[in-house]
């Protein structure tokens, strides 16, 4: 995609071409991860059979998992499997990787999306305020906050919030994704697959309250980095825009400052913010590794961390592939949204 004034291809053709290219990228990711995972000394059969399995038992498992075949055969069979929906079996959980991942994905997506929404809700007004009062106290405060948010280690922030709000004040749950007894009494009916959204959509107040109370702290931690970088970007973009001649003209026409910022200057900042959101989305997916561990939140991140620790190759491959696909999808969605928002952009 690039800015230009030529005749653009229809959006569908563009999306299809990008999807095709994304598949190639995903294939590259799979092959590279597979090769790296195989270079690392590991014994998947040993993980499968348990720490004290006999040599004969491990040999049996090795043959059963096809680990005794040449690497290129294993890759081809893995890729063919993925194409047909078989993502392999985790050597740690002994369950199909795809069902493991897709069972946990909604929790992570929920956390990352909540983090992004909070990030935008905090970052955009904070950036605007900093640009509006550039060089004055609010600007200094926002810049300090953004610096802190961007540089603070997430696990540390997670531990602090957990200790203060959950353990000390008892305001929110310490860990987990829901209250077991509440969800047993008020089961959530699936609509979108995202538990909290489903509970809200089906009017299941008890479940929604329980799910939300467990989501607040992790989502706040995940939101810190997006909020910080979005603040900085909005501040910089709006300040740039304020120097543009058309904004000066709008000002000279007597528009109130609120409209100058909100209607004209901010509009120019939306494109980079959208682009950044796709990047931050990918970053936040990885950030959840630590956040989910601290809050014992069952999601992709905790699963990935456990898989890496056990060198569970099929699970590591599955997580990598899924994160890559989500990342590619987010980028494509942002490109399409940008084209819809900015009339100067043509899709090619």
């Amino acid at each position, binding site marked *: 995609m690039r800015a230009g004034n030529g005749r653009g291809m229809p959006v569908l053709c563009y999306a299809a071409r990008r999807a095709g290219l994304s598949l190639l990228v995903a294939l590259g990711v799979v092959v590279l991860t597979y090769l790296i995972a195989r270079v690392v000394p*590991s*014994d998947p059969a*040993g993980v499968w059979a348990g720490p004290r399995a006999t040599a004969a038992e491990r040999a049996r498992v090795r043959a059963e998992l096809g680990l005794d075949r040449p690497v290129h055969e294993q890759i081809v069979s893995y890729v063919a499997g993925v194409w047909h929906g078989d993502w392999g079996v985790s050597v740690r959980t002994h369950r199909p990787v795809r069902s493991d991942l897709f069972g946990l994905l909604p929790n992570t997506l929920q956390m990352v999306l909540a983090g992004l929404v909070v990030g935008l809700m905090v970052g955009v007004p904070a950036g605007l305020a900093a640009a509006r009062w550039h060089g004055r106290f609010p600007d200094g405060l926002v810049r300090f906050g953004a610096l802190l948010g961007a540089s603070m280690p997430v696990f540390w922030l997670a531990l602090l919030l*957990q200790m203060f709000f959950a353990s000390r004040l008892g305001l929110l749950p*310490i860990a987990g*994704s829901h209250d077991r*007894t509440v969800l047993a009494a008020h089961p959530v009916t699936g609509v979108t697959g995202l538990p909290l959204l489903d509970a809200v959509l089906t009017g299941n107040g008890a479940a929604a309250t329980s799910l*939300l*109370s467990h989501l607040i702290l992790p989502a706040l931690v995940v939101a810190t980095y997006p909020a910080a970088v979005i603040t900085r970007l909005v501040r910089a973009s709006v300040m740039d825009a304020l120097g543009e001649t058309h904004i000066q003209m709008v000002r000279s026409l007597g528009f109130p400052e609120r409209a100058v910022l909100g209607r004209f200057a901010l509009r120019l900042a939306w494109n980079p913010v959208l682009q950044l959101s796709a990047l931050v989305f990918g970053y936040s997916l990885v950030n959840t590794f630590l956040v989910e561990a601290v809050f014992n939140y069952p999601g992709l991140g905790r699963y990935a961390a456990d898989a890496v620790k056990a060198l569970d190759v099929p699970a590591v491959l599955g997580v990598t592939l899924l994160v890559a696909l989500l990342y590619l999808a987010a980028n494509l969605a942002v490109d399409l949204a940008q084209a819809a928002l900015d009339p100067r952009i043509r899709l090619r």
Partner: protein
Amino acid sequence: MVLSVLVAGCSGGGGGGEDDDTFVYLAPQGLVTEWDPARSYSDEVVVLSNVYETLTRYNADTRRTEGVLATRWTSSKDRRTWTFTLRDGVRFHSGRPLTAEAVKAAIERTMRLKASASYVWDPVEKIVPVGARQVRFELSRPAPLDIVASATYAAYIYEVRDDAKDYRATDRGTGPYTVSAWRPGSENEVELTAFQDYWGGWHGNRYQKVIFQAVPQSSTTAQLMSSGEGDYAGGLPPQLVDTLRGRPGLSVRERPSWQTLIGLLNTEKEPLDDVRVRRAVVHALDYGELIAASRGALVRSDGVIPQGLLGHTNDLDLPNDDLDADRARARKLLKEAGYGPGSGRTVELELTYPAGDDTARTLGDLMTAQLRPFGIDLQVRGLTWSSAQWPRAKKKDPDERQDIFVMYWWPDDAESLSYFRNVFRTEKEISYNLAYYSNPELDRLIDRVGALTATDPARAARTYRTMQKILINDAPVLFLGTTTYRRVLSSDVKGFTDNPAYANVVFVHDLTHR
């Protein structure tokens, strides 16, 4: 909305603290990978032991076996024929009664699969049901079958099904609980519910539900225990246990386990192939300081066999009773071997330990400092057990292997034999003898002592003593310590006893709550 969430948050957390009849077990990782009771050989035993039962159970305090599914057992004088009488009124969770045929079918399937610790049944030649209530075992050699039948792994009695997949997430046991939910990856991984027809009954305030929660972050575990959302946490690091000690609503229980931390010295690689260098390393270490550095995670090992097992003795004349004499001896041995200060040759060693084990890492670092004055340069490396530490130790070329392999060992049943047979007996294909040690005399004693345990325990104890003496003399091993179990429990829990024969298992039906 946010306010209502906060109010809801205040009124109760996410765990099981609010249900008095639910026991919440906090585990550092997901527990279940294998549901088949014949194949299980890992952490899921913590769950399975509440679902399946064995014929007998070993009591580590009395050092005797007690009846579970069997009420009495007798053996012939030569200990080659054993007859177990089954308990009346026992039913499988399917409702079918426990019979002698069912016991035979379960044990025969376990033996046939050759998985897990099925080797404990190796002496069994034939299983003969005698009527519906008695089972006779005919053995090829004398063995303490009452202890074998109490093993942690591979000794469960279950209803035999044709397809192994049928064991997944369901159960075919006779135990006090049935599996009501299994959610791998979820915070409440496994839920068990009381089996109302359990032969032991449900009188008193017994727990009706058990939840196994996987909480990888130990600080989170500590906070869940403090807030009353967990009833049991078994594997917290010492510093966290110390912070929880004395907190209202919690109690900390400690007892030495049967899990020993050993350092296996590579007897096939220079310089530790020289027994003098091995002995020098053994004598150069200050074990008292190592134990102190573990902050209560370890107690001093008296030898290969921990307290509570046949053959344990505390008069083996281990080094370090006289620190100065030991150090002088270490210097002398190194000098004889051509090393040490002034020789111009340094002993360079590499120690590997299971990554993530803070106690082993602390000990490794301290050993580096302790060995430096002797001209021994010790490099310490944490490697993932299954993917790096163990595979590397099994490399064909001895020079590519580590010099010191630090690992834990614990027995599969209440016998001392596995400490020797698995770790120190000559191996053709490397498995757990990671000192690569071979001594025909020790091999001969190992092969003999199993039968002696059944026929003449006193002689077996003397043989074990001789075996330990051989190991101390040949020095293929550092006895670094014996793990202390430190369990944090809710004060509501009554009747808990920590049985080292069943590591980390809580037999929840034995407990009551307030």
